[in-house]
């Protein structure tokens, strides 16, 4: 190797040579492959619904991770941005029913603009003082937004939400050729956007900008002493994350073809996403997708577990009762993970298998 290169550059070149072989490339590509070929096997609705939810919430959790793991601020208002996307999509479908393509495109633009404004407002008011203001202020913003969405029923449909008329090419009954239905088309549309967003986040966090963010997270005073205006770095990262979160909301609204405050705006959604990131591992991006997979499986599988418990162990009725108490398990999981498994699955794997860079 050229002796004139600095050690940092040498290490980087080495990493570049090995990156095809590294597990950090192989496993995600395998995962992507699974998602790509899944519709070809003609899966049941349950499977494809699970896959889409894993995808959307996985990317949503990754946007949350950009904030929590890379920027070091905890937001309880992430579901609000998800809801902004979902509602702007649903309302545009209602306002311009004739041209769905325009509606979808406009939904992306409008969701991005609204999210950017609200996110920078929140960041502006909270980050100026102490970072933990952010958790409180976002919680207040999110819960009041939910109340507003319920009460302004003439605009948002109130608690009943809005049912959307999907364009014909995304409709369940529409057939392009053979087994390629509108649903499959929508699936691939969601997959493409999700992959795009995820690669954008990977690029963002691995860029020089992302490295500054990491340094702020590790030691804010020092990065400030190095001359970085930490406020603007955090602000930009938060806005970026919130815009992508609103895009996830659009995709979710398209998939459900229905939006309601409970399914897109509620605080529980933020908590779900938070636990996904914690399960997968903070500051890893991929952790969000793993966490999303586990959580969706748990949530989807719990009713089945309950049936099994009731059939197999009728002498222990409390087993069935416990599986019915999803929130109780959820809270326990929360506390246990934070105390005993703080680095998450990916963090744990990294500690286990990564060779130390000597």
């Amino acid at each position, binding site marked *: 190797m050229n002796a004139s290169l600095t050690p940092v550059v040498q290490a980087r070149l080495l990493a570049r040579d090995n990156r095809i072989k590294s597990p950090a490339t192989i496993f995600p590509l395998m995962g992507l492959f699974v998602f790509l070929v899944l519709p070809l096997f003609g899966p049941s609705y349950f499977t494809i619904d699970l896959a889409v939810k894993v995808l959307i919430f996985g990317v949503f959790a990754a946007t949350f991770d950009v904030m929590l793991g890379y920027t070091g601020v*905890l937001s309880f208002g992430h579901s609000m941005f998800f809801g902004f996307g979902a509602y702007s999509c649903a309302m545009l479908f209602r306002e311009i029913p004739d041209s769905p393509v325009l509606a979808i495109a406009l939904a992306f633009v409008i969701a991005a603009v609204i999210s950017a404004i609200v996110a920078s*407002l929140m960041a502006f*008011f909270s980050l*100026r*003082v*102490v*970072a*933990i*203001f952010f*958790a*409180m*202020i976002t*919680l*207040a*913003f999110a*819960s*009041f*937004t939910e*109340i*507003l969405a319920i*009460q*302004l029923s003439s605009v948002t449909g109130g608690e009943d939400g809005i049912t959307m008329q999907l364009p014909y090419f995304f409709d369940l009954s529409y057939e392009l050729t053979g087994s390629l239905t509108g649903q499959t088309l929508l699936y691939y549309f969601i997959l493409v956007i999700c992959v795009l967003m995820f690669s954008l986040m990977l690029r963002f966090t691995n860029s020089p900008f992302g490295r500054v963010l990491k340094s702020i997270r590790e030691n*804010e005073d020092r990065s400030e002493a190095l001359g970085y205006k930490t406020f603007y770095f955090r602000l930009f990262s938060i806005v970026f994350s919130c815009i992508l979160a609103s895009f996830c909301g659009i995709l979710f609204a398209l998939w459900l073809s229905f939006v309601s405050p409970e399914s897109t705006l509620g605080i529980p959604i933020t*908590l779900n996403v*938070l636990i996904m990131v*914690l399960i997968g591992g903070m500051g890893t991006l991929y952790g969000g997708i793993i966490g999303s997979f586990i959580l969706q499986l748990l949530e989807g599988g719990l009713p089945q577990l309950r049936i099994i418990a009731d059939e197999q162990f009728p002498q222990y009725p409390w087993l069935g009762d416990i599986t019915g*108490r999803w*929130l*109780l398990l*959820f*809270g*326990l*999981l*929360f*506390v246990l993970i*934070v*105390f005993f498994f*703080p680095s998450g699955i990916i963090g744990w794997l990294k500690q286990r298998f990564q060779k130390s860079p000597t």
Partner: protein
Amino acid sequence: MSERMQDKSMPHWVKAIAIGVWFIPLFITWIKPDLMDFPTWASMTLSGIAMGCLIFLMAVGLTIIFGLMDVLNFAHGVFFTIGAFIGWKLFNTLLLEWVESDGFLLNIAAITLAIIVASLVNILLGILMERIIIRKTYGDHLKQILVTMGVGIIVVELIRIIGSAEVETFIIPGWFTEAFFIGEVMVIRYQLFSILMGLLFFVLIQWFLNSTKIGLIVRAGVENPQMIKAMGYNLNKVFTGIFAMGAVLAGIGGLIWAGFEENVDAAMGDHNLIYAFVVVIIAGLGSVKGSIIGAIMVGIFFNYVAFFVPQLAAGSLIILMCIILMLKPSGLFPQK
């Protein structure tokens, strides 16, 4: 970070406007009595102050715990809910006769007893929670928020199982439901009672912090915990005590609030925690005086907006919060 962003003191005209804004509704009663007459304004303001006093009971615990222990407790709402549920349970079972009678003494006895029971339960829970959970998270804000959030979810779910998952009716003791008139203004006794309780506890807390030995240690602990430890005081015990005190205050607030709303449900604590957060943010973290002013501001503002545009009442608090943070980024009475 706070040293860098010091508040500049506000110019006087901003202060004047900030105070003057609160009298706009009173002004309306003078020029446009058909929109809102004076008695309506007065009873609205009273109910706003009452609401504020109850939010204060919750917010003050949050703010003292944060100021002294540097712990942001997202599970504070559960103490509020527990207080309310204990009141509901007692009033419906053991104390039913006392509550249903119109006698002042029996009613007061019922409320006092409920407050004592709720306080005992909350003291116990607060001590347990601080000892077992909070103590392991000192100095790590993220962990604190996550763990307390998780504990909050668990306890609320337990309340749903043990207490009730439905919205239950809360019986107010008979004597307190009646109203009397001062001039044309109608005053409901229960509102007056809420205000008195809020002010009573405000005075008690101020007295405790400013005039007792433990209060002195608490205040010094806020200033410089290392020094207090070096002087041989066991700050851990003080922490546990203060945490339990916060829990008790929130429980009393919840009990009285349940009568104010005339119903209880398991989510009420989380709902009110958000109001308490708004108050704490407005007041400046760690300030007791700020929290009563902030709480009353929030209560009054909420009631005024609810009178004119009921749908926007909750959302308007965000605007209030934003305006105050714009004028004073670390709240009205920043401590640190």
